[in-house]
Protein backbone atom coordinates (compact mmCIF):
# COMPACT_ATOMS: atom_id res chain seq x y z
CA UNK A 1 0.00 0.00 0.00
CA UNK A 2 1.15 3.49 -0.82
CA UNK A 3 2.37 5.09 2.46
CA UNK A 4 0.38 8.28 1.82
CA UNK A 5 -2.83 6.28 2.31
CA UNK A 6 -1.60 5.36 5.78
CA UNK A 7 -1.33 9.06 6.63
CA UNK A 8 -4.97 9.46 5.62
CA UNK A 9 -5.92 6.54 7.87
CA UNK A 10 -3.85 8.02 10.71
CA UNK A 11 -5.79 11.28 10.53
CA UNK A 12 -9.11 9.46 10.21
CA UNK A 13 -8.49 7.14 13.17
CA UNK A 14 -6.97 9.86 15.35
CA UNK A 15 -10.03 12.06 14.85
CA UNK A 16 -12.50 9.20 15.34
CA UNK A 17 -10.76 8.44 18.65
CA UNK A 18 -11.15 12.14 19.50
CA UNK A 19 -7.46 12.94 19.54
CA UNK A 20 -6.54 16.59 20.03
CA UNK A 21 -4.54 16.49 16.80
CA UNK A 22 -5.23 19.26 14.33
CA UNK A 23 -3.16 21.15 11.80
CA UNK A 24 -3.31 24.95 11.91
CA UNK A 25 -5.60 26.25 9.11
CA UNK A 26 -2.76 28.23 7.56
CA UNK A 27 -0.73 25.03 7.14
CA UNK A 28 -3.62 23.29 5.41
CA UNK A 29 -4.02 26.31 3.12
CA UNK A 30 -0.31 26.25 2.33
CA UNK A 31 -0.31 22.53 1.58
CA UNK A 32 -3.22 22.89 -0.81
CA UNK A 33 -1.56 25.85 -2.56
CA UNK A 34 1.61 23.77 -3.02
CA UNK A 35 -0.36 20.78 -4.34
CA UNK A 36 -2.37 22.86 -6.80
CA UNK A 37 0.69 24.67 -8.15
CA UNK A 38 2.71 21.47 -8.43
CA UNK A 39 -0.07 19.72 -10.33
CA UNK A 40 -0.49 22.77 -12.58
CA UNK A 41 3.23 23.12 -13.29
CA UNK A 42 3.65 19.41 -14.07
CA UNK A 43 0.76 19.52 -16.52
CA UNK A 44 1.91 22.77 -18.09
CA UNK A 45 5.37 21.47 -18.90
CA UNK A 46 3.85 18.55 -20.79
CA UNK A 47 1.22 20.68 -22.47
CA UNK A 48 3.91 22.42 -24.49
CA UNK A 49 4.85 19.11 -26.11
CA UNK A 50 1.31 18.19 -27.21
CA UNK A 51 -0.11 19.24 -30.58
CA UNK A 52 -3.34 21.25 -30.30
CA UNK A 53 -5.01 18.91 -32.81
CA UNK A 54 -4.98 16.01 -30.32
CA UNK A 55 -5.72 18.17 -27.29
CA UNK A 56 -8.71 20.07 -28.59
CA UNK A 57 -11.10 17.14 -29.22
CA UNK A 58 -10.15 15.68 -25.82
CA UNK A 59 -10.80 19.01 -24.12
CA UNK A 60 -14.22 19.36 -25.75
CA UNK A 61 -15.18 15.79 -24.80
CA UNK A 62 -14.12 16.31 -21.19
CA UNK A 63 -16.09 19.56 -20.89
CA UNK A 64 -19.17 17.79 -22.30
CA UNK A 65 -18.73 15.10 -19.66
CA UNK A 66 -18.62 17.85 -17.01
CA UNK A 67 -22.05 19.06 -18.15
CA UNK A 68 -23.56 15.60 -18.64
CA UNK A 69 -22.62 13.98 -15.30
CA UNK A 70 -24.77 16.27 -13.11
CA UNK A 71 -27.65 16.08 -15.61
CA UNK A 72 -27.63 12.28 -15.26
CA UNK A 73 -27.37 12.17 -11.47
CA UNK A 74 -29.92 14.91 -10.75
CA UNK A 75 -33.09 12.96 -11.75
CA UNK A 76 -31.83 9.93 -9.81
CA UNK A 77 -31.23 12.00 -6.69
CA UNK A 78 -34.60 13.68 -7.04
CA UNK A 79 -36.75 10.60 -7.83
CA UNK A 80 -34.89 7.71 -6.23
CA UNK A 81 -33.21 9.56 -3.39
CA UNK A 82 -36.27 11.75 -2.66
CA UNK A 83 -33.95 14.64 -1.89
CA UNK A 84 -35.34 18.18 -2.02
CA UNK A 85 -34.78 19.91 -5.36
CA UNK A 86 -32.09 22.24 -4.01
CA UNK A 87 -30.26 19.39 -2.27
CA UNK A 88 -30.44 17.12 -5.32
CA UNK A 89 -29.03 19.92 -7.50
CA UNK A 90 -26.30 20.64 -4.96
CA UNK A 91 -25.30 16.96 -4.75
CA UNK A 92 -25.34 16.69 -8.57
CA UNK A 93 -22.98 19.69 -8.75
CA UNK A 94 -20.64 18.27 -6.10
CA UNK A 95 -20.42 14.90 -7.89
CA UNK A 96 -20.17 16.39 -11.37
CA UNK A 97 -17.19 18.50 -10.38
CA UNK A 98 -13.81 17.18 -9.24
CA UNK A 99 -11.63 16.83 -6.17
CA UNK A 100 -8.02 17.81 -6.68
CA UNK A 101 -7.03 15.85 -3.58
CA UNK A 102 -8.42 12.66 -5.11
CA UNK A 103 -6.66 13.45 -8.38
CA UNK A 104 -3.35 13.85 -6.51
CA UNK A 105 -3.84 10.47 -4.83
CA UNK A 106 -4.58 8.85 -8.23
CA UNK A 107 -1.41 10.34 -9.67
CA UNK A 108 0.60 9.13 -6.66
CA UNK A 109 -1.00 5.67 -7.02
CA UNK A 110 0.02 5.43 -10.67
CA UNK A 111 3.53 6.61 -9.79
CA UNK A 112 3.78 4.03 -7.05
CA UNK A 113 2.66 1.28 -9.45
CA UNK A 114 4.94 2.68 -12.17
CA UNK A 115 2.09 3.10 -14.63
CA UNK A 116 2.44 5.70 -17.37
CA UNK A 117 -0.32 8.25 -17.96
CA UNK A 118 -0.78 11.28 -20.20
CA UNK A 119 0.82 14.13 -18.32
CA UNK A 120 -1.62 16.79 -19.55
CA UNK A 121 -4.28 15.36 -17.20
CA UNK A 122 -4.18 18.46 -14.90
CA UNK A 123 -5.79 20.33 -17.80
CA UNK A 124 -8.81 18.04 -17.44
CA UNK A 125 -9.03 18.88 -13.74
CA UNK A 126 -9.38 22.55 -14.62
CA UNK A 127 -11.95 21.81 -17.36
CA UNK A 128 -14.09 19.60 -15.11
CA UNK A 129 -14.24 21.94 -12.17
CA UNK A 130 -16.72 24.54 -13.47
CA UNK A 131 -19.43 23.01 -15.76
CA UNK A 132 -21.13 21.06 -12.96
CA UNK A 133 -21.44 24.21 -10.83
CA UNK A 134 -23.31 25.99 -13.62
CA UNK A 135 -25.57 22.98 -14.26
CA UNK A 136 -26.23 22.57 -10.51
CA UNK A 137 -27.32 26.18 -10.07
CA UNK A 138 -29.60 26.06 -13.13
CA UNK A 139 -31.12 22.78 -11.91
CA UNK A 140 -31.84 24.32 -8.52
CA UNK A 141 -33.15 27.70 -9.57
CA UNK A 142 -33.82 27.62 -13.31
CA UNK A 143 -32.48 30.52 -15.33
CA UNK A 144 -33.78 33.42 -13.27
CA UNK A 145 -32.83 37.05 -12.86
CA UNK A 146 -32.50 36.37 -9.17
CA UNK A 147 -29.14 34.68 -9.69
CA UNK A 148 -26.28 37.15 -9.84
CA UNK A 149 -24.38 35.46 -12.67
CA UNK A 150 -21.67 38.08 -12.79
CA UNK A 151 -20.71 37.63 -9.15
CA UNK A 152 -21.03 33.89 -9.55
CA UNK A 153 -18.79 33.75 -12.62
CA UNK A 154 -16.24 35.79 -10.70
CA UNK A 155 -16.34 33.36 -7.82
CA UNK A 156 -16.21 30.17 -9.91
CA UNK A 157 -13.61 31.20 -12.48
CA UNK A 158 -11.44 33.11 -10.05
CA UNK A 159 -11.74 30.63 -7.17
CA UNK A 160 -8.48 29.64 -5.50
CA UNK A 161 -8.15 26.22 -7.11
CA UNK A 162 -8.80 27.38 -10.70
CA UNK A 163 -6.41 30.34 -10.39
CA UNK A 164 -3.59 28.19 -8.97
CA UNK A 165 -4.10 25.22 -11.30
CA UNK A 166 -4.46 27.35 -14.40
CA UNK A 167 -1.68 29.67 -13.26
CA UNK A 168 0.65 26.70 -12.73
CA UNK A 169 -0.31 25.26 -16.12
CA UNK A 170 0.44 28.54 -17.89
CA UNK A 171 3.74 29.09 -16.06
CA UNK A 172 4.86 25.51 -16.78
CA UNK A 173 3.76 25.82 -20.39
CA UNK A 174 5.55 29.16 -20.83
CA UNK A 175 8.91 28.23 -19.30
CA UNK A 176 9.11 24.53 -20.26
CA UNK A 177 11.01 21.71 -18.54
CA UNK A 178 14.32 23.55 -18.18
CA UNK A 179 12.54 26.61 -16.78
CA UNK A 180 10.81 24.73 -13.95
CA UNK A 181 13.93 22.73 -13.12
CA UNK A 182 15.21 25.23 -10.48
CA UNK A 183 11.78 25.05 -8.78
CA UNK A 184 11.74 21.29 -8.53
CA UNK A 185 13.22 21.31 -5.00
CA UNK A 186 10.09 22.89 -3.54
CA UNK A 187 7.44 21.66 -5.94
CA UNK A 188 8.23 18.25 -7.42
CA UNK A 189 10.60 16.57 -4.96
CA UNK A 190 8.36 17.28 -2.00
CA UNK A 191 5.13 16.20 -3.73
CA UNK A 192 4.68 12.94 -1.81
CA UNK A 193 5.56 14.52 1.54
CA UNK A 194 3.17 17.41 1.00
CA UNK A 195 0.47 15.00 -0.15
CA UNK A 196 1.02 12.85 2.96
CA UNK A 197 0.51 15.85 5.30
CA UNK A 198 -2.46 17.01 3.22
CA UNK A 199 -4.06 13.58 3.54
CA UNK A 200 -3.42 13.55 7.29
CA UNK A 201 -5.52 16.72 7.53
CA UNK A 202 -8.10 15.28 5.09
CA UNK A 203 -8.42 12.29 7.41
CA UNK A 204 -9.17 14.63 10.33
CA UNK A 205 -11.74 16.54 8.27
CA UNK A 206 -13.33 13.36 6.89
CA UNK A 207 -13.90 12.03 10.41
CA UNK A 208 -15.97 15.10 11.31
CA UNK A 209 -18.25 14.40 8.38
CA UNK A 210 -18.44 10.66 8.99
CA UNK A 211 -19.96 11.39 12.37
CA UNK A 212 -22.65 13.59 10.79
CA UNK A 213 -23.66 10.79 8.38
CA UNK A 214 -26.00 9.16 10.89
CA UNK A 215 -28.29 12.15 10.57
CA UNK A 216 -28.89 11.58 6.85
CA UNK A 217 -29.35 7.83 6.72
CA UNK A 218 -28.88 5.06 4.20
CA UNK A 219 -29.96 6.79 0.92
CA UNK A 220 -27.12 9.30 1.18
CA UNK A 221 -24.59 6.55 1.85
CA UNK A 222 -25.86 4.55 -1.14
CA UNK A 223 -25.59 7.60 -3.41
CA UNK A 224 -22.17 8.44 -1.98
CA UNK A 225 -20.95 5.01 -3.12
CA UNK A 226 -23.12 4.50 -6.22
CA UNK A 227 -22.58 7.84 -7.96
CA UNK A 228 -18.77 7.60 -8.05
CA UNK A 229 -18.96 4.02 -9.35
CA UNK A 230 -21.39 4.93 -12.14
CA UNK A 231 -19.46 8.09 -13.04
CA UNK A 232 -16.17 6.16 -13.07
CA UNK A 233 -17.62 3.85 -15.74
CA UNK A 234 -18.56 6.86 -17.89
CA UNK A 235 -15.11 8.39 -17.35
CA UNK A 236 -13.33 5.12 -18.19
CA UNK A 237 -15.42 4.63 -21.34
CA UNK A 238 -14.69 8.18 -22.45
CA UNK A 239 -10.97 7.73 -21.73
CA UNK A 240 -10.92 4.62 -23.85
CA UNK A 241 -12.87 6.33 -26.63
CA UNK A 242 -10.38 9.20 -26.65
CA UNK A 243 -7.54 6.72 -26.99
CA UNK A 244 -5.97 7.47 -23.62
CA UNK A 245 -3.51 5.00 -22.09
CA UNK A 246 -4.60 2.72 -19.24
CA UNK A 247 -3.06 5.21 -16.77
CA UNK A 248 -4.83 8.14 -18.42
CA UNK A 249 -8.13 6.26 -18.48
CA UNK A 250 -7.70 5.50 -14.77
CA UNK A 251 -7.18 9.19 -14.04
CA UNK A 252 -10.21 10.25 -16.10
CA UNK A 253 -12.36 7.61 -14.37
CA UNK A 254 -11.11 8.88 -11.00
CA UNK A 255 -11.86 12.49 -11.96
CA UNK A 256 -15.39 11.52 -13.01
CA UNK A 257 -15.86 9.59 -9.76
CA UNK A 258 -14.50 12.28 -7.45
CA UNK A 259 -16.71 14.83 -5.73
CA UNK A 260 -15.76 18.41 -5.04
CA UNK A 261 -15.46 19.64 -1.47
CA UNK A 262 -13.98 23.11 -1.91
CA UNK A 263 -15.00 24.97 -5.07
CA UNK A 264 -18.56 23.64 -5.37
CA UNK A 265 -19.61 24.00 -1.70
CA UNK A 266 -18.51 27.64 -1.70
CA UNK A 267 -20.27 28.48 -4.98
CA UNK A 268 -23.47 26.59 -4.16
CA UNK A 269 -23.60 28.06 -0.65
CA UNK A 270 -23.90 31.56 -2.08
CA UNK A 271 -25.97 30.75 -5.18
CA UNK A 272 -28.36 28.15 -3.72
CA UNK A 273 -28.61 29.10 -0.03
CA UNK A 274 -31.60 26.80 0.60
CA UNK A 275 -29.50 23.69 -0.14
CA UNK A 276 -28.17 22.06 3.02
CA UNK A 277 -24.36 22.34 2.87
CA UNK A 278 -23.84 19.74 5.61
CA UNK A 279 -25.69 17.11 3.52
CA UNK A 280 -23.51 17.49 0.41
CA UNK A 281 -20.31 17.66 2.44
CA UNK A 282 -21.26 14.59 4.47
CA UNK A 283 -21.61 12.72 1.16
CA UNK A 284 -18.55 14.08 -0.62
CA UNK A 285 -16.17 14.13 2.37
CA UNK A 286 -17.70 11.53 4.67
CA UNK A 287 -18.24 8.82 2.04
CA UNK A 288 -16.93 9.49 -1.43
CA UNK A 289 -13.49 10.92 -0.65
CA UNK A 290 -12.44 8.07 1.67
CA UNK A 291 -14.06 5.51 -0.66
CA UNK A 292 -12.16 6.80 -3.69
CA UNK A 293 -8.87 7.09 -1.84
CA UNK A 294 -9.01 3.71 -0.13
CA UNK A 295 -10.92 1.50 -2.58
CA UNK A 296 -11.97 3.45 -5.66
CA UNK A 297 -8.69 4.29 -7.36
CA UNK A 298 -7.33 0.71 -7.53
CA UNK A 299 -10.81 -0.34 -8.68
CA UNK A 300 -10.86 2.27 -11.47
CA UNK A 301 -7.43 1.06 -12.51
CA UNK A 302 -8.82 -2.47 -12.94
CA UNK A 303 -11.78 -1.01 -14.80
CA UNK A 304 -9.42 0.83 -17.17
CA UNK A 305 -7.47 -2.39 -17.76
CA UNK A 306 -10.67 -4.29 -18.48
CA UNK A 307 -12.02 -1.70 -20.92
CA UNK A 308 -8.74 -1.43 -22.77
CA UNK A 309 -8.69 -5.21 -23.14
CA UNK A 310 -5.39 -5.61 -21.32
CA UNK A 311 -5.29 -8.93 -19.46
CA UNK A 312 -5.45 -8.40 -15.67
Amino acid sequence: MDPIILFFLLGLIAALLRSELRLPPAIYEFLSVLLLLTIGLKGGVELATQPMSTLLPQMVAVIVMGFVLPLLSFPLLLKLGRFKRADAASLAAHYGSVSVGTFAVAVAYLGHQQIEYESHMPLFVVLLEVPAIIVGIILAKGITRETNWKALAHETFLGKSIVLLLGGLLIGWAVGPSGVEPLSGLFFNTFKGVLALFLLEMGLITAQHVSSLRKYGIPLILFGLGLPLASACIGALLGNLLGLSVGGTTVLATLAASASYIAVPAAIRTAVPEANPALSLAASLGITFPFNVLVGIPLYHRLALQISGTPL
Partner: protein
Amino acid sequence: MSDKKQPKLVVIITESVIETTLLTDLEVLGVKGFTISDVRGRGHRGTRAGEWGIDGNIRIEIVCGESLSDQILAFLEQKYYDNYAMITYCSDVSVIRPEKFLG
Protein backbone atom coordinates in the same frame (compact mmCIF):
# COMPACT_ATOMS: atom_id res chain seq x y z
CA MET B 1 -27.68 62.73 25.57
CA SER B 2 -30.71 61.93 23.43
CA ASP B 3 -31.36 58.38 22.31
CA LYS B 4 -30.33 59.12 18.73
CA LYS B 5 -26.90 60.20 19.93
CA GLN B 6 -26.14 56.87 21.54
CA PRO B 7 -23.57 54.92 19.45
CA LYS B 8 -24.35 51.23 18.96
CA LEU B 9 -22.09 48.25 18.52
CA VAL B 10 -23.56 45.76 16.04
CA VAL B 11 -21.93 42.33 16.05
CA ILE B 12 -22.66 39.79 13.29
CA ILE B 13 -21.36 36.24 13.58
CA THR B 14 -21.87 34.19 10.43
CA GLU B 15 -20.38 31.89 7.80
CA SER B 16 -17.16 33.16 6.23
CA VAL B 17 -18.36 31.88 2.84
CA ILE B 18 -20.80 34.81 2.53
CA GLU B 19 -18.31 37.49 3.57
CA THR B 20 -18.06 39.16 0.15
CA THR B 21 -21.82 39.31 -0.45
CA LEU B 22 -22.49 40.49 3.08
CA LEU B 23 -19.93 43.31 2.92
CA THR B 24 -21.42 44.53 -0.36
CA ASP B 25 -24.86 44.61 1.28
CA LEU B 26 -23.54 46.46 4.33
CA GLU B 27 -21.86 49.03 2.14
CA VAL B 28 -25.12 49.66 0.28
CA LEU B 29 -26.87 50.15 3.64
CA GLY B 30 -24.35 52.86 4.45
CA VAL B 31 -21.86 51.12 6.72
CA LYS B 32 -18.56 52.99 6.41
CA GLY B 33 -16.25 51.03 8.68
CA PHE B 34 -16.08 47.60 10.30
CA THR B 35 -13.71 45.07 11.84
CA ILE B 36 -13.70 41.40 10.86
CA SER B 37 -12.15 38.48 12.71
CA ASP B 38 -12.07 34.73 12.06
CA VAL B 39 -13.80 32.88 14.86
CA ARG B 40 -14.91 29.40 15.89
CA GLY B 41 -17.94 28.20 17.74
CA ARG B 42 -20.96 25.98 18.01
CA GLY B 43 -24.62 26.59 17.38
CA HIS B 44 -27.74 24.81 16.20
CA ARG B 45 -26.14 24.32 12.78
CA GLY B 46 -23.37 22.28 14.41
CA THR B 47 -19.76 22.92 15.32
CA ARG B 48 -18.14 25.48 13.09
CA ALA B 49 -14.54 24.58 13.73
CA GLY B 50 -13.06 27.14 11.36
CA GLU B 51 -10.40 24.67 10.33
CA TRP B 52 -10.76 25.14 6.61
CA GLY B 53 -12.60 27.24 4.06
CA ILE B 54 -16.19 26.14 4.07
CA ASP B 55 -16.83 25.71 7.78
CA GLY B 56 -15.20 28.95 8.92
CA ASN B 57 -17.03 31.68 10.82
CA ILE B 58 -16.43 35.41 10.88
CA ARG B 59 -17.38 38.10 13.37
CA ILE B 60 -18.08 41.55 11.97
CA GLU B 61 -18.17 44.48 14.39
CA ILE B 62 -19.73 47.77 13.37
CA VAL B 63 -20.06 50.93 15.45
CA CYS B 64 -22.82 53.19 14.14
CA GLY B 65 -25.86 55.27 15.00
CA GLU B 66 -29.13 53.75 16.15
CA SER B 67 -31.15 54.16 12.97
CA LEU B 68 -28.48 52.47 10.88
CA SER B 69 -28.12 49.66 13.41
CA ASP B 70 -31.89 49.06 13.23
CA GLN B 71 -31.73 48.97 9.44
CA ILE B 72 -28.83 46.52 9.49
CA LEU B 73 -30.55 44.14 11.87
CA ALA B 74 -33.85 44.19 9.95
CA PHE B 75 -32.11 43.67 6.63
CA LEU B 76 -29.98 40.76 7.85
CA GLU B 77 -32.94 39.01 9.40
CA GLN B 78 -34.92 39.28 6.18
CA LYS B 79 -32.13 38.27 3.78
CA TYR B 80 -29.92 35.80 5.63
CA TYR B 81 -31.58 34.29 8.69
CA ASP B 82 -33.55 31.55 6.86
CA ASN B 83 -30.64 29.88 5.15
CA TYR B 84 -27.41 30.84 6.84
CA ALA B 85 -25.87 30.29 10.23
CA MET B 86 -26.05 33.84 11.58
CA ILE B 87 -26.53 35.62 14.86
CA THR B 88 -26.49 39.34 15.45
CA TYR B 89 -26.58 41.42 18.55
CA CYS B 90 -26.50 45.08 19.32
CA SER B 91 -25.48 47.01 22.40
CA ASP B 92 -24.84 50.54 23.58
CA VAL B 93 -21.20 51.52 23.58
CA SER B 94 -19.21 54.51 24.75
CA VAL B 95 -16.76 55.72 22.14
CA ILE B 96 -14.22 58.47 21.84
CA ARG B 97 -15.20 60.85 19.00
CA PRO B 98 -18.86 59.75 18.78
CA GLU B 99 -19.43 62.17 15.88
CA LYS B 100 -17.23 59.86 13.75
CA PHE B 101 -19.81 57.09 14.03
CA LEU B 102 -23.08 59.02 14.13
CA GLY B 103 -22.68 60.75 10.77
